């Protein structure tokens, strides 16, 4: 079975407003406002309109190995919120 892949909406489908301690993300397709930590917009940017595996995401961030479970947990939360699609 092939590895799980993730995809976020294209960049123009999101409106991002940094508000001091958090970032507000308006998702145009759903009309839902998401409140996220400051690192999430970068993750959404990497995944914008392209399917990537967790390996590829880590490579894009030049992340050192070992913190895979935190990344997967974050992606799972974004999937449940509808901001990221799992395929």
């Amino acid at each position: 079975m092939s590895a799980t892949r993730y995809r976020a909406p294209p960049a123009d489908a999101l409106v991002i407003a940094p508000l001091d301690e958090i970032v507000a993300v308006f998702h145009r397709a759903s009309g839902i406002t998401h409140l996220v930590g400051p690192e999430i917009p970068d993750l959404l940017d990497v995944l914008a309109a392209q399917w990537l595996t967790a390996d590829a995401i880590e490579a894009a961030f030049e992340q050192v190995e070992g913190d895979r479970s935190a990344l997967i947990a974050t992606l799972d939360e974004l999937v449940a919120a509808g901001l990221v699609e799992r395929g």
Partner: protein
Amino acid sequence: MTPARTLAAVLADPSAAEALTPGAWAAVLAVAQAEQLIGTLAVRLDGLPLPARVAALLHDAQATALEGRRQALWEAEMARRALAGIVEPLILLKGTAFVAAGLAAGQGRSIGDLDILVPRDRLDAAETALLAHGWMWVKPDPYDDAYYRRWMHELPPLIHPERDRMIDVHHTILPLTARLRPEAGKLVADAVPIGGGLAMLSPTDVVVHAAIHLFADGDLSGGLRNLWDIDRLLREYAEADGGYWPSLATRSADHGAVAVVARAMRLAHALFGTPVPQDSQRLRLSDRLFLRCLLARDGWARESRKLTRLGFYIRSHWMRMPPAMLARHLWIKWRKGASAG
């Protein structure tokens, strides 16, 4: 002319709006709001010269309808993701189907719950998947639950608490207790894809469903909006397909729904001037009762002629449930009501 009839006239022919006085506008807008037709009215009158306050109100209504549309389509997408691998494509019903397919009936339409049609043999798997993806039962009542599962045409309603949206999972389009027995297998087999992993009922089935829904489901409240759906659907399909009317007749017969479809056509023609075939235009005496009921609101949007409505409510319940079963259902409801208070 009652305000509801004026509303129908303006919907059918937007140029009729020019003749409205401020008093007539106040009444028409209140009735449109109450009948959930204000977004539709706004789209129909878009671009016409209107009094400033009316234009501002309709502008708001159009924005509201647009947000409703966005939410409805998103809910369909979330259901599609949850049910991927179980039902593909996902068959949408009612308003969400109209907007997803870009039909005229969806323009400005207000949309409530998400209604989907799932083949009966996939029902358990669909239920499990929805529960795993965050949907929950609205009211966990064992009697209601058993009643729904045994007799109704849908699962007990589920809600997604975070998005605050309900989903109705149908496996056919009428309760199993009803005397009308639409063929669920044919509905699924003939569904047409509309892109994005979604599908809707065929052009004839969708009208049969809308007609059944109008007369057999509930008490005709909200009926004006349902009849408007039927007008738009009939116009669009008949224009695209020269053989539409005979196909519709055949299909209505397949589902045992000839009478309700014929009545819907006569009423749509009477209220909205739907171009139905000549022999489907003449109103019967009983149609006038239905019309009165559909138009039963005054200039303050109050439902007038309550007795007519009550008559229809009982009638519609009888149509869905054999009398003994109805008695049992009401009795259990009453008893529960008594013990509760």
